[in-house]
């Protein structure tokens, strides 16, 4: 299992656009990928699950990947977070 923590920097929080990007990016991976915010966890492959958490700018979130390609999944999340200025 791999984990990484981010602070959301996207000014509008995890709105549809940044959400779509993260969800689209992790969907192809076999690993289970989740996001945890304020002790609630959602499937990062579910746009409704993630958006339903109402994550705002400045929030601390933890991304976890568990499965055969977990390191690749986390690396992909990291790439999208930075490239699209979603979080750091």
């Amino acid at each position, binding site marked *: 299992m791999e984990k990484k923590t981010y602070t959301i920097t996207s000014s509008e929080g995890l709105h*549809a656009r940044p959400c779509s990007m993260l969800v*689209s990016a992790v969907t192809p991976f076999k690993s289970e990928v989740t996001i945890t915010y304020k002790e609630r966890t959602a499937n990062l*492959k*579910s*746009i*409704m699950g993630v*958006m*339903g958490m109402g994550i705002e700018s400045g929030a601390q979130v933890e991304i976890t990947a568990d499965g055969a390609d977990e390191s690749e999944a986390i690396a992909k999340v990291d790439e999208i977070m930075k490239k699209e200025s979603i979080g750091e």
Partner: protein
Amino acid sequence: MKQTITGIGVSDGIAIAKAYRLETPDLTVEKLTIEQPELEIARFEAAKAEAAVELEAIRAKAAENFGEDKAAIFSAHLLVLNDPELESSVKGSIEQGVNAEFALQQAADTFTAMFEAMDNEYMRERAADVRDVTKRLLAKLLGVHVSDPSTINEEVIIIADDLTPSATAQLNKQFVKGFVTDIGGRTSHSAILGRMLEIPAVVGTKTAMASIEQGTALIVDGTDGTVLLEPTDEDTRAYETKKVTFEQDKELLKRFVSESTVTSDGHHVEVGANIASTEDLPLADKNGAEGVGLFRTEFLYMGKSDFPTEEEQYDAYKTVLTSMGERPTVVRTLDIGGDKELSYFSTPEEMNPFLGERAIRLCFEHPEMFRTQLRALLRASVHGNLKIMFPMIATLEEFRRAKGMLLEEQEKLKADGIEVSDTYEVGMMLEIPAAAVIADLFAKEVDFFSIGTNDLIQYTMAADRMNETVSYLYQPNHPSVLRLIHNVIQAAHKEGKWVGMCGEVAGDPLSIPVLLGMGLDEFSMSPSSILKARAQFADLSKAEWEGYIPEILQMETSEKITEFVQAHS
């Protein structure tokens, strides 16, 4: 048989074509007990695949018609469609023995309710996206035909109850010549879309779906909101002429979009846009607005269940300021009361609401509401060229009090380490005759005036402009009104302050020459009037009209003044 329906004209122009009815499909779902869940799951999977193909096509069409930005929403719709949580919820219910339709409906309701319950306006609006996607899926399951406007291949006028985002994205500009919706107002989605696509649109017709059949010959006049059913040949000819004139005028005006407003003798005035929401920004840009002369903030407060938060307001102000950049943006603080009310906030019933507790008066009574807006504005001030304007100021004490509250909030923000611009301006709306008379005293303390002519005229003439029997007193060129305006401009210029005007009169061709002669610095009007005004300025000489002013100010009636303007321009 010939028939006329009237609605609100929200996008100018004339369209002549056949009606295309955009039906709202019947998606009533029955709960059934099923024996073979695997068959239901297979049906669900098949419906999903079909919906996905459709959404892909819509996405592509949206990208082509509106650009990648607008198409992104459909990428999000595809993710909703393929959402694993939605899928597991539906499959879970099917395995309990219910039919796919019912399972989907249940899941859709749960997710929609979840978004609607969120305390963030943006997220609440996402509920509409979820509903849009699940409806499409449901229609596939039910085998209900959903009108597919993307297959339209002849010129039509769309008739609908209302337009959903996915329906509008499929509209092909080549064939859709206009639209009529039974629901909606000036700021509704369909109205904004009509203006963006520059096709005539009439909304709020109430009876269009009930009285217009598929294929009915129609004429739509988006300027005055008229919809003619089965027009006579004579009507068609008359409207065809009107259409040609409209299009020629529009073409001629296009060259003014990227030019600044300059008179024939080289004097520059600023022509800005009046906007009512962030959705109006593209329209302001398209018409070459040199600024926003009036951003009405009421929309932030209307159509909601509670006051907008500081954050929601900050977002809206930031959007407008960022989009306008260097260009001046005048934001008017909350102006409710009078004829504008909020559902969640009861204002006392008054004998004379226009003379009662409205605008700044109401804000003083409810300082917390006012301070929230001021804080949001101050925080947004760093994002552009902000000018804050207080409405309905009658006395100097009122202006000082409002500005005092603003400065207090500024100090608090700064103490919290929040940045505030040090170049924003603070001015007032000049709409009460009392303030116009002592404009010289105000001019020492304000950064600018913006003359609100609708109220200034109604208060000067003591005539309710909505009352038809006294509406003859609504005379923008009346000597009393012009003398007040002249007094305000003189007083302001003496103190080196600028004066704008944000009422209807600022865009009136019969008033523009006089206001120019008086030295008005900024004219703010509805975006669709900007280019026409700019073209008029190009033909006017400031020096010439300056010379006429002493003579005009001595004229006895508005009729004489108007005749003079007509004769000299």
